[in-house]
């Protein structure tokens, strides 16, 4: 056995003057490996993780693949639907949806003008692809996020477990969890970016559902109990309706985060405006990148306005009727 000093001295071998205290290297894997080849270099360490991951990949895939396959189907179908349906059907349908959720002619007109503008500069298909992905992912976020939020609001223990996970999902740069996903699925599968978007965008709807239900006036809950409501009657008749403004604020944020993520996810083959931005960056086509960026801004404003307006409608029907 050699002492640490010997190891380091040997590692520095050829040099005429030994290491001074000033430039004494940190005994890292690579440094130690030079002194004693029995110690693996850090490259082996990352290789180890990689092969470990590849070893469980097969098993993981057999479980996760069928579970997430519907996501691929939904994304493919929605992309197909929104890009293959003629524009003169899609645009009125989008306007009708806007009317139903906001009851505002101004917003309907805004939707028409924005999409017409995007179509005019030949960004219609890309914009529809982006919208299609957002619709599917935000829908799944709500589908999963609201029940998770409700469960959290009922159990302090579950809340203690889930909140750190949400914190992590929200603070991790999305690129970090794109990496394992790329290895797990092939880059051509839509569910790859679908999962990435959902993981990133589900956080606010879960958080705000939990918060919204916990914030419901305790006196009203007590009245519901005093009049003999079952848990179910309380949940659907009191808690969810009173938490709805908060839940919808979560949905708004979820949609906005889906939009942010769908741009980044173009790195892993998500179609849409993000691809054009990426082209702008890669081949330094400034104009293409900027115009696509402008398209994203328009979509962002549009989605935000429409969801906020429907949120405001819920707010007033909750307290003013």
């Amino acid at each position, binding site marked *: 056995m050699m002492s640490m000093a010997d190891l380091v001295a040997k590692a520095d071998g050829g040099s005429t003057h030994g290491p001074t205290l000033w430039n004494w290297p940190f005994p890292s894997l690579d440094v130690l490996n030079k002194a004693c080849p029995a110690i693996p270099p850090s490259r082996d360490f990352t290789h180890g993780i990689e092969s470990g991951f590849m070893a469980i990949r097969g098993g993981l895939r057999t479980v996760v693949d069928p579970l997430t396959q519907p996501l691929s189907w939904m994304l493919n179908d929605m992309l197909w639907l929104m890009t293959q349906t003629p524009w003169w059907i899609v645009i009125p349908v989008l306007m009708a949806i806007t009317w139903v959720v906001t009851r505002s002619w101004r917003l309907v007109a805004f939707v028409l003008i924005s999409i017409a503008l995007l179509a005019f500069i030949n960004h219609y298909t890309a914009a529809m692809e982006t919208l299609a992905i957002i619709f599917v992912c935000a829908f799944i976020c709500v589908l999963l996020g609201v029940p998770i939020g409700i469960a959290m609001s009922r159990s302090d223990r579950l809340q203690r477990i889930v909140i750190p996970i949400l914190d992590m999902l929200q603070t991790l740069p999305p690129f970090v969890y794109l990496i394992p996903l790329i290895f797990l699925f092939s880059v051509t599968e839509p569910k790859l970016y679908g999962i990435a978007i959902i993981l990133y965008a589900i956080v606010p709807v879960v958080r705000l559902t939990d918060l919204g239900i916990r914030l419901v006036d305790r*006196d009203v809950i007590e009245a519901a109990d*005093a009049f*003999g409501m079952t848990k179910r009657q309380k949940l659907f008749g009191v808690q969810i309706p009173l938490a709805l403004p908060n839940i919808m604020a979560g949905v708004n944020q979820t949609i906005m985060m889906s939009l942010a993520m769908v741009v980044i996810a173009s790195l892993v083959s998500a179609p849409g405006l993000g691809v054009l931005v990426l082209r702008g960056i890669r081949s330094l086509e400034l104009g293409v990148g900027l115009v696509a960026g402008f398209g994203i801004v328009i979509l962002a404003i549009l989605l935000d306005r429409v969801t906020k307006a429907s949120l405001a409608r819920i707010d007033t029907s909750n307290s003013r009727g």
Partner: protein
Amino acid sequence: MTKNIKASIRHLYKIFGADPEAALERVKAGMGKPELLETSNHVLGLQDINVDIREGEITVIMGLSGSGKSTLIRHLNRLIEPTAGEVLVNGENILDWKEPQLRQLRRETMSMVFQKFALLPHRTVLENTGMALATRGIKKADFEAEANKWLERVGLGGNGGQYPHQLSGGMQQRVGIARALTSNSEIMLMDEAFSALDPLIRTDMQSLLLELQDELHKTIVFITHDLDEALKLADHLVILNDGSVIQQDEPQAILLNPADPYIEDFVADINRARVLRVRSIMSEGAPEGEVAGEVDLNDNLESVIAKAEGALDRRYRVLRKGAPVGSVAMPAIMRALVPRRSSGETAKR
């Protein structure tokens, strides 16, 4: 006047904290509320409460804030679980009951009116009024008539389509009362139902309650921290302090014979002439000597003094529904106006 006992609370203890059982042992061994809080960080909410709630009467539970009134009333429908004791409703111990039975009790036997109204903000006044019926699974079309009837009765006939926040506090509490009445329960629990209202509206609501009670004869448990309100409404008055009952009786009897200095202080500022009634101080049998006139047994002393124009040598015949039942003399009235001190002589009536 021996009425059925509708509900009763027996040897009820409630201790808030991590280990109420252990704390209960100490309380039973004689430890008081401050000491318990200090040594083991448990709050002694209620201590050996025994109260009978008679059918068709208004039982008022009075005490200062923090005395345990809300905790006590919530044991009657088990919104709060006791640490020890029994809660009997129609003779059955509801602490033995399972969830469905308890739910039925809350839906059909008891209704509650809250200090902060606690209406559903997203439902109309009509839907709020029918809440108990809707909870039982009755469709809106079927409970509408019943709910409207009670809204009408509390003076909100035209407001069924509005939302609670569009109404003033007093009107919201009328909805609260209509909601309780629509459930058609025998027992109504009212936790400081009028405490959040302005004095004038409050007086209105007290009168409304008495008027309704005249007609409906519900069994009402009413909580208040206000002695005037308690005296106005109570058939039976329970005074609570620091989680214990310190006196319970007919209100007039408490005024005339306060059980301890705490209650003496409490009743010291009351307008006794207005609150005390002839029936509480009259002597039975035919009046001796000459009478100056007739008074009803439910007249208050103030009205008798006014009638006598302050003269102290008058004597009145007391009538109940027109028939003579006894007499009252001015000196007895004057004596009753002086609050009794427990250290002083016993002011026998």
